[in-house]
């Protein structure tokens, strides 16, 4: 699995300001990768371009070993006409019923599957939304702030579980939580403002697979490196 970008530029129509300029990087292998950077740096724009790059052949994005790319984001909603559990049932392939049950359990949503989406808290809504994406066929799943409003402990549990259950898949995790990104991600693409003329770069994260293995000095080094990158 390889994702490569060789000089991606992007500006919104009728705008002269570049959102993304000359973006170059490569990420290899399945696992949890990240896109990190301050607000307005073009993380979501990049994610959307990547999700739809096949319909825009002019984009300098190349992949190998990656078929389906899905993009999910914070504040996506499920329809209101039936319970979240029924919605999950409808979008869950028959052969993934066990996975669905496991995810509901890990995501701690068992008690609310009978509730309608509008009756869930924001954190529950985001977790419910993420489950339905994880049940789909994908090779690369872009998670854009998909675990926002979820408490830190549960978020770590979810991240580690996803890494374990979907170890053969590629994830691109967009988050503003530096420690989380540094700790759990493999390659961290640090985006910078085009106006700062500083190229974006890849920083290697710790790629932890369990909670007890926290190595403070090592983590500090990664975080410092990320901070220095923009």
């Amino acid at each position, binding site marked *: 699995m390889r994702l490569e970008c060789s000089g991606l530029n992007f500006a919104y129509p009728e705008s002269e300001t570049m959102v993304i300029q000359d973006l170059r990087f490569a990420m290899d292998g399945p696992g949890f990768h990240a896109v990190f950077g301050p607000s307005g740096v073009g993380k979501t724009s990049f994610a959307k371009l990547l999700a739809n790059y096949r319909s825009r052949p002019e984009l300098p994005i190349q992949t190998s070993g990656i078929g389906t790319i899905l993009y999910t984001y914070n504040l*996506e*909603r499920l329809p209101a006409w039936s319970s979240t559990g029924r919605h999950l049932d409808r979008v869950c392939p028959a052969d993934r019923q066990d996975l669905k049950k496991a995810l509901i359990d890990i995501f701690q949503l068992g008690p609310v599957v009978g509730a309608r989406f509008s*009756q869930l808290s924001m954190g529950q809504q985001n977790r419910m939304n993420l489950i339905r994406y994880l049940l789909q066929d994908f090779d690369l799943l872009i998670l854009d702030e998909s675990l926002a409003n979820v408490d830190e402990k549960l978020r770590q549990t979810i991240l580690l579980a996803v890494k374990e259950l979907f170890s053969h898949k590629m994830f691109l995790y967009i988050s503003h939580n530096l420690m989380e990104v540094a700790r759990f991600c493999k390659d961290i693409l640090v985006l910078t403002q085009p106006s700062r003329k500083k190229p974006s770069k890849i920083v290697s994260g710790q790629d932890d697979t369990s909670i007890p293995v926290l190595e403070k000095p090592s983590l500090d080094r990664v975080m410092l490196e990320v901070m220095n990158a923009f």
Partner: protein
Amino acid sequence: MLFRRIYQFMIVYAVFLGILLVVKKGLSLSDYVIPGLPLILETAVHMSTGFFTDVMDTLSVAILGQGISIFLAFFVGILGRKSSWAGSMIRVTAYNIQAYPIVALAPIIFILLGDGFLSRLLIAAMICYFPLLLSVLGVMAAPVEDIEHFYIATGRMRWQLEVKIRAFENLSKLTTVIAGSATLAMAGTIVAEFIAANAGIGYSIRIALYQSNLAAILTALFMIGIVISVYQGILETLGEMLKAKWGSENKGGLL
């Protein structure tokens, strides 16, 4: 909701009648110009049964007309929701036709269809159809991206699902417009009857007008108001029940 509608109408009607009677008293006008309370009551006792039957006749046509217009509005609204050339054409045509006063087309309708049931039905349907259509088009043409994204991304989106999502997301707007269009349908039917029909409360009002019988007109207005309040109240109550069961308001909105 239902009772609130009725007593709100009663208050408005009483105020309206009160103003008329104050003007009558203040200007010492005869019963010919503004009827006094005894004459109004006498007329009401004498005519209310007949007028009630007439209003129910009008209401039945209005309900049927409204039903047809709701069906047509959704049919055309669903067809015209796409940003394709055909969709755009349907929207523009709907906006343009809406600019025509239906009442101006009424004479043509009566010539073609006569002054019976069909003309009343068609005019009622047409009068409430266009406002409904514009609302439905507005709802159906506006994507609900935060819900639709998943279905599009995973290849599950079908037109039925798209319509369902957009309708449910705008349930409040649609139920309000549908309840509001009841008044339009009723008004359309009354106008049709007033112009040329041979039945219904509009027809009775026309006769009362020929005979300068304001007391009869006031009685008819009361009957229309009460019946339409009940009908609209029922529609609104149904709308509230629908919204409570299916609505997408978040729980913060319920606080």
